[in-house]
């Protein structure tokens, strides 16, 4: 554990000294690798946009959808090169995509499970290639998708027989893909002072119960990674994954470091944020501490919907009606009569509030998550988030392996996914990883919105018109992802209320496609009163008469602050609503729902009563936490 460091009014001076040192090659954060420092070093940090959830042909649910792009291709795409996607005519891809703005970073997160199985089934001559399971894989990919995933995602799963005794063949077969993943990350990582692009070696642990996702991405800090990724065959439960990572990496590997990002809690049937362990026993303080140490972030939104909150599930917040699925796990998607409306426990806002309850009981908060978003692309196309160019996503959507789907390119409830944004001094693995660790990160549903969010006790109310918003933000408080410093003690005076300084700038856009203006800023507060969950959503700034603004800023003082109640605050930045991908496709195909003859059967989803024609694009910041009484304020300032 790093030593806690209290922040003080003199913090700005010490901090500037550190910034000065950085220019000479010293960095105000721990470094673990050899590389040139970046020319564009910014002591006050810049936002870096990327994607931390990317599948390529090494993922069985991507390869059975016709995805041929490999990790190298995914990184080429993220760096701005044009990339072909399925369907293919021989070797020629019939569709292609290109990012007009490259990403700053990306991580390929292929499933740890089935990496070896997929390779065996596709490579004649490997032991197991001629098995029935592989025959099904090659001839009936959709059937194989269900069979293999149903097998690998159940607790206590054992490998298919074709993997040989103790799965030895499949483990050996997974070595080349895992090495290729590492080589691709190294090959695309810019270690020069130009710092154009950063990669992370990563994988997805694909655990859960039958069809209920407990999926997590594991992101490594640098090139020092375990011999093989830990999948569900080696670690059935999240606790096993934490144990394995600690043994193989954090404590076992020289210079190895990792964090875990859970995702799709909206498909976990309430299991992602349980307050019991996998054996059904209440969480212990040690389990809560370990989880808080490893699971620093959560993916709040991606291709398979939004996991922030759900209107009607413990909230009346209307903006929770955003990119929602109508089922709580995959058995609900594929077997309609099993579909259940997801309850509050599937959502991050509930978990953040429950974390406060757990901290009161255990002394550690197991759900202390920073928020970010990503795509979960299964085409190997990180950062392809444009609504007007959504090609579908492979994975759970309709297949384009042989030909384009006749109807919509994706299931109605899915979407192109979002981006992860990290506030860092420079675009290097160490700087970005430290941003993730201290949770100074946010997510967007696609647009490149910039947002700063600080909390303290003494910010001047006129901070928004001061030229030193950011300097003051760090010097007198903490950025997103941090803990409010201890409540100032003023004898005889009423305790002050937290001051939240929030500033957002719209996506600058591209010459042919300007960014959308901002509609408003909101603060979401969650707190606990006598053990009960409470929440409130405040509109704190808005553009004039709904016309939208380039920039919105506010120093907001919590009017309902109770210094005895633990609380968290996060910000939500909303753009003016714009057409959703599905509406763009439906309109382009001439669908007019008032005229049934214009609606061919394959385009009936266009006129589904649940179809939302607009999307309220947004950004979610990581929370800032307030804990009453004595606390170890771990400074998140540089």
């Amino acid at each position, binding site marked *: 554990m790093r030593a806690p460091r209290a922040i003080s009014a003199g913090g700005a001076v010490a901090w500037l000294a550190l910034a000065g040192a950085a220019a000479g090659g010293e960095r105000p954060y721990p470094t673990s690798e050899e590389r040139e420092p970046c020319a*564009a070093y910014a002591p006050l940090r*810049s936002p870096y946009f990327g994607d931390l959830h990317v599948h390529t042909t090494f993922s069985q649910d991507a390869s059975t959808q016709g995805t041929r792009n490999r990790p*190298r291709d995914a990184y080429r795409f993220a760096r701005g090169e044009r990339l072909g996607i399925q369907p293919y005519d021989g070797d020629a891809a019939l569709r292609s995509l290109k990012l007009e703005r490259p990403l700053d970073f990306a991580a390929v997160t292929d499933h740890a499970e089935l990496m070896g199985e997929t390779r065996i089934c596709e490579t004649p001559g490997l032991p197991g290639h001629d098995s029935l399971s592989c025959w099904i894989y090659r001839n009936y990919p959709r059937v194989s998708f269900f069979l293999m995933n149903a097998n690998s995602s159940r607790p206590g799963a054992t490998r298919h027989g074709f993997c040989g005794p103790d799965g030895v063949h499949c483990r050996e077969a997974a070595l080349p893909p895992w090495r290729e993943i590492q080589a691709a990350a190294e090959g695309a990582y810019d270690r020069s002072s*130009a710092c154009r692009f950063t990669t992370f070696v990563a994988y997805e642990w694909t655990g859960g119960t039958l069809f209920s996702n407990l999926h997590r991405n594991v992101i490594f800090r640098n090139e020092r990674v375990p011999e093989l990724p830990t999948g569900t065959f080696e670690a059935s439960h999240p606790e096993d994954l934490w144990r394995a990572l600690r043994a193989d990496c954090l404590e076992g590997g020289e210079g190895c470091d990792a964090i875990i990002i859970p995702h799709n809690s909206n498909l976990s049937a309430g299991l992602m944020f349980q307050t019991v362990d996998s054996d059904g026993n209440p969480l212990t303080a040690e389990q809560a501490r370990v989880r808080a140490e490893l699971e620093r972030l959560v993916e709040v939104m991606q291709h398979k919907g939004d996991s922030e909150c759900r209107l009607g599930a413990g909230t009346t917040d209307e903006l929770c009606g955003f990119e929602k699925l109508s089922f709580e796990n995959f058995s609900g998607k594929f077997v309609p009569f099993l579909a259940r409306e997801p309850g509050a426990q599937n959502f991050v806002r509930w978990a953040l509030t429950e974390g406060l309850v757990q901290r009161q009981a255990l002394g550690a908060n197991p759900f202390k998550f920073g928020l970010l978003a990503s795509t979960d692309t299964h085409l190997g196309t990180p950062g392809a988030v444009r609504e007007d160019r959504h090609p579908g996503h492979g994975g759970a959507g309709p297949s384009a392996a042989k*030909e384009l789907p006749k109807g919509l390119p994706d299931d109605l409830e899915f979407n192109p996914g979002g981006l992860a944004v990290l506030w860092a001094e420079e675009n290097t693995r160490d700087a970005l990883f430290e941003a993730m660790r201290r949770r100074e990160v946010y997510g967007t549903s696609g647009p490149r919105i910039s947002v700063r969010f600080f909390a303290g006790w003494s910010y001047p109310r006129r901070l928004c018109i001061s*030229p030193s918003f*950011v300097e003051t933000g760090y010097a007198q408080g903490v950025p997103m992802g941090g803990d409010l410093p201890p409540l100032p003690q003023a004898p005889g005076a009423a305790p002050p209320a937290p001051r939240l300084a929030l500033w957002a700038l719209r996506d600058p856009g591209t010459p042919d496609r*300007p960014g959308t203006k901002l509609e408003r800023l909101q603060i979401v507060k969650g707190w606990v009163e006598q053990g009960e969950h409470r929440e409130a959503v405040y509109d704190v700034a808005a553009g004039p008469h709904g016309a939208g603004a380039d920039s919105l*800023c506010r120093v907001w003082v919590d009017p309902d602050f109770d210094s005895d109640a633990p609380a968290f605050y996060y910000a939500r930045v909303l753009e003016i609503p714009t057409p959703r991908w599905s509406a763009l496709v439906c309109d382009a195909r001439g669908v007019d729902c008032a005229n049934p003859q214009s609606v061919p059967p394959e385009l009936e989803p266009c006129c589904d009563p649940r179809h939302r024609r607009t999307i309220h694009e947004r950004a979610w910041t990581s929370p800032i936490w307030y804990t009453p009484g004595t606390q170890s304020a771990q400074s998140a300032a540089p």
Partner: protein
Amino acid sequence: MSARWLAQPLVHFVAIGGLLFALDRLAQHEQAEPAITITPERIAELREDWLARAGRLPSAAELEALVEREVDEELLLREARRLGFQRSDPLVRRRLVQNMRFVSSDDGGDPDTLLSQALALGMDRKDLVVRRRLVQKMELGAFAAARTREPSEPELREFLARHPERFSEPARVRLSHVYLSRDRRGDELDAASRRLLARLADGHPSPERAPALGDPFLAGHDLPLLSERELAKLFGADFARAALGLAPGAWRGPLASSYGRHLVWVHGRSAARPSSLDSVRGEVREALLAERGEAALRELLRRLRARAAVHLARPRAGAADAPPPGPSAAKG
């Protein structure tokens, strides 16, 4: 006792000569292979396939590429068969045996016999799955072979020197700016920015204090050395391009950004320069191996072409049935 005679140059000379002789004989033998002929009918098929899949007819250049690809595939297929992959590759074997069982409605039968029958019927040339598998095997083999040898230091340096556009530090500028917000200034934006520029041109106040005369900007007013792409992230692409071309040492502008107008003072610039090998070693190695893979495949195809006769019914450019290239031929 070591076989010292193996190290003698004369022995090498004879051995290499013998090898070349054998290869030459082999090549002559192979030239007896039938020529590759791409008929007008086949070209018509290629066009129809393209139309069915892409929804439009191929342009002349696209059709040319399809025909070339057809020749390449045939060459790779022949080579794969010459190497016996149609017998040794398990996927191909199983497919051919299955085909034979289907054709003969006979579930039994010895796989080796069935395979021989399938080959005798030329199924390995006709079955699309088998063809693709054999071609792919040749291509992957060429790529994999090219990756086995680790590039040497001089090779990496040479590659780096050959691709300055891919591995260089971009030009950068360090600037301060005074921002005028469109949100705040509205219709006054242009007039206000010109007035402020005139005031700043008098030298009052100093560049350090000037930003306070404008509006606050989220990314700050004194920026580090930034490239065009990094500037575009903060201000938009038009501003970035314009800012990189500004001469230093005076207030200039106003430049339009996505958010309003900016008066800009450029403090200094750094020119584009080649990256050092150490800083881009991983990227260079990766790019070099990829290039080698492509080159190995091209070389293989060149060798195969050199010993096969190819007869093409060249698609006639400007022929009555050839569509004009470009979007006018597009459909749907």
